[in-house]
């Protein structure tokens, strides 16, 4: 392995930046009032303050908060790892993070308005009010909770990866990842990620801009880089970049990822914490700026080939590339950027999932901050379990597994916005079928995110999440019609109840 060993400079710089960010974020309660006296009188309950930041984030904070959701270990570790292993195919993360924005623009302002009017904090709240069903609320909440576990697991793997690259082995890197995440979230709440998202983005930008400028210079320019990388990857005939049988997986993974991206409790938290519906629309215009950088980060997977990095652990591609190209102190800084870039979103995810447990899963509406914190800790332990027990070929498979699960809330949450006659029992039936079908396929395929299908003369591998969503929608529609016929009910009795509030 052409590894440059990290020295004490790398480790020192890493610890300095990583610890400083955690301290700054987790003590925010103490120094924020000094900067902003206006906040002294607040009419929000402590729980809403900890979980939704008081629904008062303007365009800039929302930009960092929502955009930051994409800048995670997914982007800086998992996507380059897939590009390193598969070439152009791993680039599907780029179309995914482009088409997600028109989708946000069209859908999320409506959801925000419904949430604001009804005082809802989570997807499950919204669904319960719309369809008047506690069971559907539970279904959506459980999907959110379970889906976020492998996604947090991916972040823990990100932190573990850079600590391993610093020369530590065994259980220590994973333990380090878990403890820092737990401490950071316990103390900070949502305001910590919102403010540290800024620090994190600046650090990531420095690391990434340095990488996308300096690495190609080392390798003789982008043209030489693409050429050198192509010699390490399987040749693809006909002047194509991805092979013909990869085009359907490419497009369907991009589409299912885009549909799934904002159904997660943590991403929805970022949206619902916005100040107005227009803040969200405005953000949909400017958020794609993030995507350019995401595309360049993905290319680090190709640059690693060109730089002669050979590793069997694909997650190590980016850290090894940084160690090979940068002076060790700067590699240490970049590792801190990656670790913070995993820590901050993981914390937002844990808070989103904790909100679900406190708000929607537990029978009694509980607002205690200690309860939320304990729930958040439980979520992180679950994520740790995913790291230890799920054996995914690529780290990105964990994120795609989360996508399969969360996509099953799409009919209730998003199609529920359309003037369709959907009823709670039909949606619950669809959700159960889609979830069982999707998880069954994931289980059989060893977490592989696509599944081969064939009908007529057509055969291709399609995103498992999209297949399961298809099953979900079909069952929802068929069940809905059967129920309507059986009851002979007129459409008016099945109209969603908008004003239903929770009793508990």
């Amino acid at each position, binding site marked *: 392995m052409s590894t440059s060993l990290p020295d004490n400079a790398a480790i020192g710089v890493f610890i300095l930046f990583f610890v400083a960010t955690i301290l700054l974020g987790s003590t925010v309660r103490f120094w924020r009032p000094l900067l902003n006296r206006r906040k002294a009188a607040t009419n929000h309950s402590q729980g809403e303050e900890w979980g939704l930041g008081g629904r008062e984030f303007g365009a800039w904070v929302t930009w960092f908060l929502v955009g930051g959701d994409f800048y995670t270990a997914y982007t800086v570790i998992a996507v380059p790892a897939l590009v390193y292993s598969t070439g*152009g195919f791993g*680039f599907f993360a*780029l*179309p995914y993070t*482009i*088409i997600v*924005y*028109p989708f946000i*623009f*069209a859908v999320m302002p409506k959801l925000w308005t419904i949430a604001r009017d009804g005082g809802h904090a989570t997807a499950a709240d919204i669904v319960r009010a719309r369809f008047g069903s506690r069971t559907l609320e539970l279904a959506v909440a459980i999907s959110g909770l379970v889906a976020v576990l492998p996604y947090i697991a991916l972040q823990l793997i990100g932190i573990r990866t850079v600590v391993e690259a610093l020369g530590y082995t065994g259980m220590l890197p994973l333990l380090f990842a878990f403890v820092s995440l737990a401490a950071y979230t316990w103390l900070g709440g949502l305001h910590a990620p919102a403010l540290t998202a800024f620090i994190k983005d600046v650090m990531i930008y420095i690391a990434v801009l340095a990488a996308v400028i300096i690495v190609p210079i080392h390798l003789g*320019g*982008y*043209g*030489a*880089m*693409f050429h050198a990388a192509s010699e390490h990857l399987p040749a693809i005939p006909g*002047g*194509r*970049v*991805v092979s013909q049988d990869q*085009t*359907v997986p*490419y*497009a369907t993974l*991009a*589409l299912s990822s885009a549909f799934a991206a904002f159904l997660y409790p943590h991403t929805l938290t970022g949206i619902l914490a916005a100040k107005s519906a227009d803040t969200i*629309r*405005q953000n*949909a*215009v*400017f958020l*794609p*700026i993030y*995507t*350019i950088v995401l*595309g360049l980060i993905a*290319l680090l997977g190709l640059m690693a080939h060109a730089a002669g990095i050979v590793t069997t652990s694909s997650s190590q591609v980016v850290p090894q590339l940084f160690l090979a190209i940068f002076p060790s102190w700067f590699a240490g800084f970049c590792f801190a950027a990656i670790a913070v870039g995993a820590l901050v979103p993981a914390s937002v995810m844990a808070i989103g999932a904790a909100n679900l447990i406190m708000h929607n899963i537990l029978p009694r509406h509980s607002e205690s901050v200690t309860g939320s914190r304990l729930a958040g800790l439980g979520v992180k332990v679950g994520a740790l379990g995913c790291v230890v027990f799920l054996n995914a070929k690529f780290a990105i498979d964990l994120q795609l597994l989360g996508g399969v699960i969360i996509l099953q809330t799409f009919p209730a949450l998003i199609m529920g916005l359309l003037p369709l006659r959907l009823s709670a029992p039909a949606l619950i039936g669809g959700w159960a079928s889609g979830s069982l079908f999707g998880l069954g396929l994931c289980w059989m395929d060893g977490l592989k995110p696509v599944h081969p299908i064939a009908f007529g003369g057509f055969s291709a591998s399609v995103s498992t999440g999209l297949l399961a969503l298809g099953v979900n929608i079909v069952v929802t529609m068929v069940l809905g019609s059967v129920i309507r016929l059986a009851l002979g009910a007129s459409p008016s009795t099945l109209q969603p109840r908008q004003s239903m509030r929770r009793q508990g």
Partner: protein
Amino acid sequence: MKKTILLLLPFAGLLWVPLYNRHDPVLLGFPFFYWYQLAWVPVTSVLIWMAWKADKQS
């Protein structure tokens, strides 16, 4: 209606992979596959901005 088309264009341009699944022409060292998709980022921003404007007028 106009707004819907604006917002659907990125889906059409990016999900039909055979449209851009080729190496040539190369731009600034980037194979077509890569620069075509990167080019959709600013284009999508502009399309969403146009849809936003259309929204505000109506």
